[in-house]
């Protein structure tokens, strides 16, 4: 992913020096600005939100990554949303408390037609992908992969429990190599002894369905503890051992 080794901290108003910007392989390719950076004509780029400056040389992108409580949606993000109400064509969902509602079309599921549209009641939990974000329109979600038409694990989350974590923690959990890059080892350790299903939303929500309520609670609390206490891998191992002993599977 990000190729830079040094992680410069930026804050609003700070001009980003040319040397930090990615060097494109093709000089004709224009630089893409992601979240938290702004172009000030003619050729200055300044940060607009605080965080770590991330650079992707391959894609020629620069953006600011931060760990705020507030989630800002971007196309392609996986989120866990709650159904508020259903309208004629779509569901109205909420990703975060006190944030604008988002849309999920009735036909944005795997294998549905007008006749077999899914029935989601108020309060149902849905695992979905952000399709489009526009400041003037409502954000739209989908529950299937548009290129293959398959659900890929998206859809309604039945049973289980929701836990609140920080958006930064959910980003770590969703990394391909969450142990090496994100420093998360607890899931691998627990998966050796317990059976559970887990879905991570980048909006700072975590859905867990264990075989018993007790196990579900224990896993959720452990991940919240790792998030708040910033536990390293060694401490996570100890925590997992303690947790398994308490459940009686140690």
């Amino acid at each position, binding site marked *: 992913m990000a190729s830079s080794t040094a992680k410069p*901290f930026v*804050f*609003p*108003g*700070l*001009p980003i020096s040319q040397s930090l910007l990615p060097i494109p392989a093709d000089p004709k390719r224009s630089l893409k600005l992601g979240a*938290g950076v*702004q172009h000030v004509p003619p050729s200055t780029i*300044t940060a*607009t*939100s*605080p*965080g770590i400056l991330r650079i992707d040389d391959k894609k020629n992108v620069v953006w600011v990554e*931060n760990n*705020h*409580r*507030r989630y*800002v949606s971007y196309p392609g993000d996986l989120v866990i949303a709650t159904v508020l109400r259903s309208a004629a064509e779509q569901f109205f969902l909420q990703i975060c408390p*006190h*944030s*604008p*509602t988002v849309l999920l079309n009735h036909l944005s599921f795997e294998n549905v037609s007008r006749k077999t549209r899914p029935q989601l009641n108020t309060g149902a939990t849905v695992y979905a992908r952000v399709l489009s974000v526009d*400041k*003037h329109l409502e954000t739209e979600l989908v529950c299937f992969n548009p290129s293959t038409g398959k659900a890929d694990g998206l859809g309604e989350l039945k049973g289980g429990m929701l836990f609140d974590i920080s958006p930064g923690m959910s980003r770590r959990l969703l990394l391909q190599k969450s142990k090496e890059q994100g420093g998360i080892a607890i899931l691998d350790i627990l998966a050796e002894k317990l059976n559970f299903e887990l879905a991570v939303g980048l909006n700072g929500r975590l859905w867990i369905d264990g075989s018993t309520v007790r196990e579900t609670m224990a896993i959720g609390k452990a991940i919240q503890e790792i998030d708040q206490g910033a536990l390293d891998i060694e401490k996570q191992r100890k925590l997992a051992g303690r947790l398994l002993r308490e459940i009686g599977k140690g």
Partner: protein
Amino acid sequence: MTDRRRVNGPTGGTTPVVFDPELVKNFAASVSKPIRTRAARELRKIFLQTGLTPSASGSAYFEVEQHPSHSHGLARSSTLKITCTVHGPRPLPRSSSFTPNMLLTTTVKFAPFAASQRRGYIRDNAERDLAVHLETAIRGVIMNDRWPKSGLDVVITILEGEDDSWWDTGLSTMSSGGQTPFGMMSILSGCITAASTAIVDAGIDCVDIVTGGVAALVKKSELATGNSNLELVLDPCPSEHDEIVACCVVGYLKARDELTEVWMRGDVSLTPQVGVGGQSEVDSLINGAVQAASAYHAVIVSSIKK
């Protein structure tokens, strides 16, 4: 069924606090009022922390250090303690009309115990005035076209505000003459700094970080000699000075070198003066306030870095 027609006292009963007038008189004679011990261009240290309110999208706590010789006991001088929470950007209620930009709402409220004179729970004119000043100061930095049809609430609670008088026993150092007290100026400066930190903590896109700063022209003491009897001090504490002639607070953007807010009060001249480095008093006041504001910028950056 409780009595809903009358306002009844607390069921437990309370003991009124008694201040012995003799004690107060003796005490007043025994302690002296605080005197500014730091240099004219030296600021008081501030404490700034973000993320204290978990439910808000951004929050900050701001505190100014106590006068070293009056930091405890009966003769404790007042300082500044401010909390700020930022809620949003969030959707506006259905009844409101369309706005292409984010609506900014600022609320400034003194806690009832914030000053020697108790405040009511309903916002008074001084608080509303502060809120308007604060809004102009932070409106310019937020990129509010990124969130149409949304609102942003900035809520400030002043837990302790600076009094113009020191230790409310008629030892009042100056009369504000029914005008806004000079203490309000440093309160506004603190509010700007706290609000800006909370907005940055909320991750709301800003063109820069705005900081507040205050400078004042004060009458020099009798002993000091010089051509002018006025002196420019940064970050004035009103109770430490015999007479403040003029005071200025600015909202300053350091990276862009711009001002979003200037509030000046008092008796100042526009003609260049010899005593204050060939500048006019107005210019030297604004420059002083800018100097104070830019010093706080580093504190904000280090507090959001954590």
